[in-house]
């Protein structure tokens, strides 16, 4: 995980609602063992059945090819819980997604990996997307510390972000180590729960 504080980068607008994780990365991407997922992101939208780039797709346009920020519609990342959707986006080069809303599991997966998910009201997202298609270079500045976005047309937006989750992104920390620090209280709770609901802890041997 890489710490995130502030980024100015090319942003690609993909203004569809309900972009699901199957569209981001197909289950079939699992095949053949561990492999780079970046080239497989949005496969069905990026490539036709012959493997040729679809010229209309935003990431196939030279202007947006090197995007590190995605600007998307409502309910981004809905559907399957597969975390490979986050990995594929990040391996392509994305470090943040700006959308009016996200699927719950995707949102959590993004935070655990350092992909910054920013919620902005729909009208503001639409304004940003339109500005990215304008005449100026399609750059967005995302300042996580200040909770502010600057569009390519110099429009400014502020967003809310849970301060604890924000700090974790800035320090590149997922929950793993933090949970390990809680083992004493987890174990104590476990002991008490065994007494209250012992049937949950009977040893089940499957063999």
């Amino acid at each position: 995980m890489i710490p995130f504080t502030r980024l100015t980068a090319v942003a690609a607008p993909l203004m569809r609602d309900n972009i699901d994780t199957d569209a981001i990365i197909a289950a079939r991407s699992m095949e053949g063992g561990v492999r780079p997922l970046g080239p497989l992101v949005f496969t069905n939208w990026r490539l036709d059945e012959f493997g040729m780039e679809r010229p209309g797709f935003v990431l196939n346009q030279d202007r947006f090819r090197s995007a590190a920020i995605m600007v998307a519609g409502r309910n981004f990342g809905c559907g399957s819980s597969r975390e490979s959707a986050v990995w594929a986006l990040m391996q392509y080069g994305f470090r943040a997604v700006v959308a009016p809303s996200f699927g719950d599991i995707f949102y959590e997966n993004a935070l655990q990996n350092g992909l910054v998910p920013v919620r902005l009201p729909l009208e503001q997202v639409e304004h940003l997307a339109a500005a990215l298609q304008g005449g100026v270079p399609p750059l967005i500045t995302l300042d996580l510390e200040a909770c502010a976005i600057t569009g390519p047309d110099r429009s400014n937006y502020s967003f809310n972000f849970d301060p604890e989750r924000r700090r974790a992104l800035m320090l590149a920390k997922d929950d793993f180590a933090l949970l390990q620090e809680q083992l004493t209280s987890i174990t104590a709770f476990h002991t008490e729960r065994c007494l209250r609901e012992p049937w949950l802890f009977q040893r089940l041997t499957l063999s």
Partner: protein
Amino acid sequence: MSESVIKQSQPRTLFEKIWEAHVIAPYGVDRSLIYIDRHFLQETTCFEAFGRLRTEGLRVLSPGQTFGVIDHSVSTAAGRNADSYPPTAPWIKAMQANCEEFGVALLDIDDARQGIVHVVAPELGIALPGMSFVCGDSHTATCGGLGAWAFGIGTSQVGQVLASQALFLSKPKTLRINFTGVLAPAVYAKDMILAVIGRYGTAAATGYAVEYAGEAVRALSIEGRMTVSNMSVEFGARSGFVAADDTTFQYLADRPFAPKNAAFDAALQVWRTQSSDDGAVFDREIDLDCSTLEPQISWGTSPQDVIGVSTPVPDPDKAPDRDRRQMMLKSLDYMNVRPGRTLLGTPIDVAFIGSCTNGRLSDIEEAARIVRGRSVAPGVRAVVVPGSTTVKRQAEALGLHHVFRAAGFEWRESGCSMCVSGNGDFVPAGQRSISTTNRNFEGRQGRDARTHITSPAMVAAAAVTGEITDVRTLAMK
């Protein structure tokens, strides 16, 4: 401490009771440290999690609370093994090796109880009421049909549960859906939940834990309740559940790993308290009258694109806004269906019965009722994949495999198969499938595959006519 004492004298929802029973401590600004009772692994979402444990030099904290199954990427061909579908063999073998190394009980491919995780966990009695239950899969909510608080997590959180048996979580809001009325013939649990998603949309319950309540839910079997809970994530909810009642307790009395005898009686005392108190306040409530529901079927590329079978496909020109109109046009184009007409008579190429939504014995029995004495239409590939090897065996004991085979269906081994199409079973490009699964996304069942999701009875009807059919007309023959 005093805060929770005050809380207990106020009416609480079922979810609040279960949440509070699992809070170890508040954490940070908005989250709590939550204890996880049981954790089920499936082979496509735990590889990196085990890797993390290895990197950190850690063991699985509580192997006794952890189980694994191979379901998503395994072939469903007769006699299948880890190598039957070579592209996924590395994942399957990694799962076998990891479970062995870390001491996690695995329902391996050749285990008589192997199956789709959300079919296996309830039928074995591994998921129980009031339990916090997680799996690296969004349809984990299925076990809510038994009154468990069951939800999907990503691979990072899988690793966290393996190492700490806990998670940091924000408390969701509460939504209760009251299903009233009596289901008409040939209308099922699947239709109930499809109707909700169709009416309220694919993000209606984002940030909520959903309680399914009302007389129509009470009247459902446990298998029906699991169908309803299964699709919670399709309208945004990470978890959805039905309060345990006598139907639940009867179901559990038979399960191999449910508590027995004195332990069962003790559990029952606690389980009987797990329901929403009278006067409990939900953040949102929805009512749905089931008595007028007809069989539901999807027309588009989102689970919210659902209509009654005799309802015309909606007209994008009548969409409430420009965004919705654009989405509808894209979906209509992808699916190659026409607005303003019903789907009846649309030819299909593939009929699939299976999945954690509708792969249980009652689903297979309903489909068999339609199929018996009939034949699969020419040119249609019809497939049944039982939700678990146990379900397969039970169906065979009733002779159902003969019914399907005689009609021209394939009767296959258990796994996720064409629901997620990660095991070699898929719908070819451009072909139209009718399926008992839970997602009709673009490309879900295969690149450029077109999917209509509906009930097992509706899939069976289309299999034998070769086209989307109102099953009620067929049953009357």
